[in-house]
């Protein structure tokens, strides 16, 4: 295997921060899903729509951060 490419330390820190943020958002989303299911099964349908919107927003944030981390990863290999 070839020698590892030199990487900018700052790039790696930013990428790792983005990954940590994605993981944190994921924990929030897991809680949101379980709480929404609980409310739905209890017959409280009012929270279902806002929860779905928030979950979609969290997914978009994760997607954005993931693209950002991927681009940073690519850049740091140059």
């Amino acid at each position, binding site marked *: 295997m070839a020698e590892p490419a030199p990487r900018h330390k700052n790039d790696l820190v930013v990428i790792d921060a983005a990954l940590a943020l994605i993981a944190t958002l994921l924990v929030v989303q897991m809680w949101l899903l379980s709480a929404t299911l609980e409310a739905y099964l209890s017959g409280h349908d009012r929270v279902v729509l806002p929860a779905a919107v928030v979950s979609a927003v969290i997914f978009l944030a994760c*997607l954005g951060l993931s693209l950002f981390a991927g681009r940073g990863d690519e850049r740091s*290999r140059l």
Partner: protein
Amino acid sequence: MSVWRQPSRDPLWREEFPVHTEDERYVTRRQFAKFLTLTSLGMAVGNGWILVRSWIRRPSAYPSVSVARIGEVAVGGVKLFTYPTPNDPCILVRTAEDAYVAYSQVCTHLSCAVYFSAKTRRLECPCHNGSFSVADGSVIAGPPPRPLPKVVLERRGADLVATGMESA
């Protein structure tokens, strides 16, 4: 071998199919981010599915079914019946001379059948020691996450008639 080792300049296909077996276990940050994002998508789809289910679920028209005759059940006694379909077991309790309550008999924890304990005056689940108030079906103790759905009762002449279900 560290999971966080420095990646090489090799093309992706060579990283995916390396010569050394242990190199296969290496996960790049990009792959990890992709995995987390797909998990996030899965949960967003889950929330969307719940939303669609809540839109599809229309308030169904409950039938009116006679479940017992007045005086048929002794004070502190119970009668089992099914409502609104033959697959939904319910329990009727006569709590006082002129007071009747009825609930779904399915525990909201893991669907065991609850029974009325005259000693404690609670609806109890024998599986995990959950107990519900006989007054309103609320959870008093144990693992059940939700109250028992209540059967709406009406008195029509000498009959007790179930006319609907209420979730707390």
